């Protein structure tokens, strides 16, 4: 049985133990029986949470392994954007220098 199947089975059992019918039945039983039901439900609910967290952890670990390469991609894209900005900045500087040259030449007799 896989972890997923076990989790699914435990969930079905828990739902049955927490149904209105089971709850109503145990409310008519002795305090000791009610305490036993609560202990059993507590145990099953705890197992469900732990199994679910194990799956969460597994996925989080696998995803985190990819973080380094995603960061490389982010740096790469950022430097492409910076390079575009610097190309335009260079063109604007050339334009400004030429504008200045034009004005200086206009003053030369």
């Amino acid at each position, binding site marked *: 049985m896989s972890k997923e199947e076990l989790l699914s089975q435990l969930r079905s059992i828990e739902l049955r133990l927490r149904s209105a019918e089971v709850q109503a039945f145990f409310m008519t039983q002795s305090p000791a029986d009610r305490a036993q039901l609560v202990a059993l439900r507590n145990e099953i609910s705890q197992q469900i949470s732990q199994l*679910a967290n194990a799956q969460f952890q597994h996925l989080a670990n696998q995803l985190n392994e990819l973080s380094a390469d995603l960061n490389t991609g982010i740096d790469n894209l950022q430097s492409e954007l910076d390079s575009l900005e610097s190309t335009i900045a260079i063109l604007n500087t050339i334009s400004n220098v030429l504008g200045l040259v034009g004005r200086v030449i206009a003053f030369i007799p």
Partner: protein
Amino acid sequence: MKRYLSLTLASVLFVTFTTSCKSTKEFATLAQAGTSYTTAMDRLLLATQEVEIDSTSERLLQDDTASNLSVKQYRNLSDPNEQTIKLIALLRTHVKLLSRYFGLLQELATSNAPGRAKTSINGVIDNLNSVSKEIHGSSLVQANVKSGAGLITSAIISGKIRGALKEELNARKDTIEKELFLQEELLKFLSTELTGELAVIKQTREQRLVIFPLTSETPIANADGWINNRRTILTMSLVSQELNTASNSVKKLREAFGDLVSDKLTLDRVNSLLDDFDSLLTIAEKLKS
């Protein structure tokens, strides 16, 4: 002959320009779909955190009605919640990283650099002509050449952007494929997890807020509140059904990235993905309310 060459040059420029625009648009739309997905996933993770905490609270309240609980029994259920909160925080950090990646892809694909480069080159030519007029008494660059230079510069920058996007996606092809495969697994898991936890909430909350007030000897004091509670509880399972349907959308995103790298992607497919992720976002919002 000169006219023929001009027409050919104009056609080549037009084709280069429009082709690069089309492809860049596909990159931009797919990156937008990726960003929408990460927004929806972030909300879904937050909603999962709330559902997990609430389902534990409902379990504890139900058990408390049957027998007095010990601190150990409380901790048995509450401690895993704290671990879930930490794991969700870790997953949200990773999703934010993915969101930043898609955001930069979109920023590069929708960059207005080609237009600004065209304006800049026109400025260079205008100033060159001013200098030339001062020295030779005539313009160095003719008006038609100036507009051609503007178009060429714009096309070169568009081509540079398109090339950079293709290069980046080719370099990150395997990582993106693996990332989206794992996101698909995560969404499937969240869908199963939320369906299970919502079933617990539905069942225990129905007992606490609907059945118990109805079966107790005293009449229901707030009838409208009871009706609202009952409606909210009975429609909870609809949200988890919608989530199951939406979990297929990441598979489509993964396939779309594969098609983009191999030039087979169509905009219609990406647009349908945007709708899917909007639905996912709506589901996440419903879960939080």
